[in-house]
């Protein structure tokens, strides 16, 4: 299909929106990396930085939504263009939520540095965040390249994140049962793990939107799911 509109301003509008999504994606990736790094190194300064930078992500979300509303009102997009606008509005929302979770991770770190450290947990959480960040990077590539296969691959990888979360959940339970003084830090760490798992779900949603954008229909929901948690 031709990728050029007869009205070239239409192309410029669409490219502008897409550029903002990619910029937002970059900021959110950086937020995940830095939030998990600040957790690993108990770096309060970096946590504060992540919290401060979240505003820019929220502003981009607002901007993208405005641009999409304007495009719908002024250009009446159809077919592929319509799907692009619809998917971008959702993707922007997903990115904004992921940014919030990263910010929340940083906030909890500023509390955690005051508490008894839990052995091994920070490393595991960082690996989990790293996996989510890589999935996010790949799904943004899939979006920009309109690559359904790559998006499908990201969908499958969410299971690994779910499994990491389940393992951490059990670990935190045993820590808390061992010593009640571990409850407060473990609750914070558990929320971080849960939020990271939710980030993975938002990445999955971006992958689904990418597939919808390219193919015109949502993927069938048949990807494997790890059990959320196993009651002891």
């Amino acid at each position, binding site marked *: 299909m031709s990728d050029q509109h007869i009205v070239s301003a239409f192309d410029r509008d669409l490219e502008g929106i897409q550029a903002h999504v990619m910029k937002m994606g970059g900021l959110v990736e950086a937020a995940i990396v830095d939030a998990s790094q600040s957790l690993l190194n108990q770096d309060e300064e970096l946590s504060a930085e992540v919290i401060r930078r979240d505003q820019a992500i929220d502003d981009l979300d607002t901007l993208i939504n405005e641009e999409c509303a304007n495009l719908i009102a002024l250009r009446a997009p159809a*077919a592929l263009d319509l799907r692009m606008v619809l998917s971008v509005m959702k993707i922007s929302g997903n990115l904004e939520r992921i940014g919030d979770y990263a910010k929340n991770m940083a906030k909890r770190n500023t509390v955690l540095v005051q508490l008894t450290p839990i052995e091994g947990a920070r490393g595991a959480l960082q690996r989990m965040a790293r996996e989510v960040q890589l999935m996010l990077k790949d799904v943004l590539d899939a979006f920009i390249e309109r690559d359904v296969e790559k998006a499908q691959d990201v969908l499958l990888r969410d299971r690994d994140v779910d499994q990491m979360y389940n393992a951490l959940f059990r670990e935190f339970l045993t820590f808390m049962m061992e010593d009640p003084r571990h409850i407060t830090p473990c609750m914070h760490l558990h929320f971080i793990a849960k939020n990271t798992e939710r980030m993975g779900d938002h990445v999955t949603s971006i992958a689904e939107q990418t597939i919808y954008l390219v193919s015109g229909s949502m993927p069938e929901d048949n990807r494997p799911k790890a059990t959320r948690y196993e009651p002891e």
Partner: protein
Amino acid sequence: MYDAPQLGNAMDQTTTKISARNVQVHYGDTHAIKDVNVDIDAKTVTAFIGPSGCGKSTFLRCINRMNDTIDICRVTGDILIDGEDIYDKRVDPVQLRAKVGMVFQKPNPFPKSIYDNVAYGPRIHGLAKNKSELDEIVEKSLRRGAIWDEVKDRLDAPGTGLSGGQQQRLCIARAVATEPEVLLMDEPCSALDPIATAQVEELIDELRSQFSVVIVTHSMQQAARVSQKTAFFHLGNLVEFGDTTQIFTNPQDERTQNYITGRIG
């Protein structure tokens, strides 16, 4: 699993009103319509879209044999309305056109009174037994045309004295006065302002409960707004035909996609 046959489905509630089979139209040496096959549903608005010269108007005019009047025009293939071939020798084009009404791009009221414009068809087809029945038909048609309230006090005034939008609605009232089963509209709103356009579109939606409406339009937004089915024509071919929502969200043919998204195709 049982595979539903491609043609026809017992669960399908809609019935086919117009059926075109291998329709070809030539204007002299020009091949204007190339082997078009399509089934148009009863009580449905079907939009024909496509770039200028793609054959959508030509095909529309085949449905009430308007092309008969053009000497160099040759139509082959079959067009069936309710299963009957309208190109059969026994079919009287005048009777056919009472059954298949048409509204044109430019409002073309007769140089007669508003009343006579609407009464003309019912009179020549003998649809009214007396004056009071004719009055009823005229009022009902003008109401259906959503213009009754504006003209009821001046039915003797000339139809040509109305505004463009009113004239077009008068023409629609005139077209529905003979109780057609199919209403063909060739760009009915291209000369109208947005308010008159909206009134005509509202009217088309109302007419759908009784008629099959087929509308040719250059405004894709209008096709999207008024129709349930859309057919995309390109260089004399029917490229894609489907539910309007599908055509406008997920067209299957690249040519359709390029056209409706305004891309260089």
